[in-house]
């Protein structure tokens, strides 16, 4: 009888303990780290380095926001009604969503204008996408562009180029830059001929990044 009791106890433990181990190990395997950040306007040149408004998901929190009614960066960018909102869950890493929205935007004294920008990046363990992103009333160098496809490049003679609806896959997520102006200047040879271009700055309007890994 004693041996039978021991065998029963072993059977019981054999049935129950693996269930405990499985759920625990699965949870550990599924736990990931989400990251989320967003900003309205960012300018980076030799003389200007400014980002506003900006939100980054902090440790221990599930949301962060920032907002600015008017953003002016030198004579490079003006924007109105800019919001940055980021969400995620660091405790179980199940997902992250970042959003940057802006109203009227004017870049490089009217070279690029828009009156509604939405950058949205959404990531889960299974999926990352930029759904929900949009550009309203976009005009680039005098040409209206409706709903540009991802990573649409338009040259800006004398300035550089702009990438519209820029979508960059990242490790476990995505970065979305709705308007990314790359400022360039020509590189000249000894005779003054243009042999290339070098990047001297970046202007990004409407950026959202999220990832889960």
């Amino acid at each position, binding site marked *: 009888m004693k041996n039978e009791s021991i065998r029963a106890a072993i059977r019981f433990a054999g049935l129950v303990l693996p269930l405990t181990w499985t759920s625990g190990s699965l949870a550990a395997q599924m736990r990931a780290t989400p990251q989320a950040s967003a900003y309205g306007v960012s300018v980076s040149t030799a003389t200007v380095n400014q980002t506003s408004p900006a939100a980054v998901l902090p440790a221990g929190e599930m949301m962060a*926001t920032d907002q600015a009614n008017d953003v002016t960066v030198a004579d490079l960018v003006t924007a109105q009604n800019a919001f940055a909102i980021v969400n995620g869950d660091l405790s179980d890493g199940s997902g992250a969503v970042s959003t940057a929205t802006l109203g009227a935007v004017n870049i490089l004294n009217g070279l690029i204008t828009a009156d509604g920008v939405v950058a*949205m990046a959404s990531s889960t363990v299974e999926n990352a996408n930029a759904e929900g992103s949009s550009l309203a*009333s976009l005009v680039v160098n005098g040409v209206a562009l409706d709903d540009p496809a991802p990573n649409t490049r338009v040259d800006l003679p004398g300035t550089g180029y702009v990438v519209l609806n820029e979508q960059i896959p990242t490790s476990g997520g995505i970065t979305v830059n709705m308007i990314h102006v790359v400022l360039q200047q020509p590189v000249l040879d000894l005779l003054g001929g243009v042999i290339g271009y070098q990047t001297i700055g970046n202007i990004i309007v409407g950026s959202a990044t999220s990832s889960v890994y």
Partner: protein
Amino acid sequence: MSPLRSLAGVTAIGAIALIAASCEANRQALAPTMGAPRFHFFEFQCQPLKMTGGGRIDYPPGTADKNPPASHEYETFGAHVMASGQFDQNGVCVADKGALEWVDHRPEMRVNGSPLNLHATSVTFAELAVDAPHCTDGAVHWGGTLRVQNTGQENLHFEVFDCDAGEPGVGQDGFAIRVIEPIDGIGHYEVTCEPDVSPAEPTCTLTGGNRQFHPTH
């Protein structure tokens, strides 16, 4: 039967009873009465839960399709809520914490020259909706008080209907908000949708973002 077998049997029965009791629908788990029908969200349980994420709705009409961007007919938001499944002395299923940031970009909703911006100042209740089967991962009714950032108007009560219908959230998940008291300069405010455009009335379908339901935390 050996003593160990008897003990195992009793333990198993007890565990089953505990689980059954914890899953039983609690008809007292009601949020504060806010004077409006809850449409599809009729039955609730007070239990531990968490809902996180953010997104975009193109309301009206609130379908899975985006409106033309130039119309500015859309809303964006971030929101989360956590609850331990506890009642307060008034029978309210209380929320442990939560947040809401809501921006309505519609031209007709501009206040003082800016998009309507609602910011939760407290999240007071959260309950699991058990009659929204299309919200396959979970549905939550929650709310509290908010401030209108455009004007500083405070202590307006709000309720949210929150639906996680799987991954990805776009085209599947739903979200809706109703502010109980009038907003200065706007009046009654709600973004709610009909059942034919959303996974569960009165939520509107996300055109971007994701809602993420967690049964416990």
